[in-house]
């Protein structure tokens, strides 16, 4: 699964730490998701999507082989 959290973050100009605090997770989690090392749960991806005020599919997309 790929995501464009990094791009979305750049648009609203917030750091990983700020996003993590806003959603209530650790900075490692945001970092791991951005690097594609960790696939977030549905709850977390919905929270991230809600924060950026976009539908989940615009931030997270399935990849070939998922």
């Amino acid at each position, binding site marked *: 699964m790929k995501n464009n959290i990094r791009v979305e973050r750049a648009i609203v100009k917030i*750091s*990983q730490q700020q996003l*993590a605090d806003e959603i*209530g*997770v*650790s*900075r*490692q*989690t945001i*970092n*791991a998701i*951005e*690097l594609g090392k*960790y696939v*977030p*749960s549905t*709850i*977390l991806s919905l929270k991230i999507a809600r924060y950026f005020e976009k539908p989940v599919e615009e931030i997270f997309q399935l990849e070939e082989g998922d």
Partner: protein
Amino acid sequence: MKKNNFLLPHYFQKIGWGLFIFSFIFLGVSLYVFNKLELFDQNYSRYGTMIFYLLLIFSALFVAFAKEKIEDELIQNIRFTSIVITAYISFSIFMIVWIFYAINHAFRFLPMDPKIWIYLRSINPVTMFMLYVVIFRTRLFISKRGLKNEE
């Protein structure tokens, strides 16, 4: 949607580390000073050693199963995989010790000092906690270290 994750509150971690250092020092003291010098009655020294050993086990339990400051799903994922790794390693150690014991029992290539075997066999449940703490902390440290390169 909040699930109970059966973990202890975060402050148990501090209590655990304090208790760990305390009981570790006093276990050493009671093992090597009290027992050797025979300051007290041997039985009292043995009880002391037992109590500090028990405290050490509890402190390892507290440290191992206290929540992190932010206990999110990634941390829980690291926790879970660490438990699996710990289980494999300690199971391997356990099996190796027992197989070695059995072979030695049959062929007697090493002296059968019962003390060594009692130590080797009783070490397992406690070392499992300690091993888990080491593995979990290391993996947590690695995941934090990766942050410095970003931004």
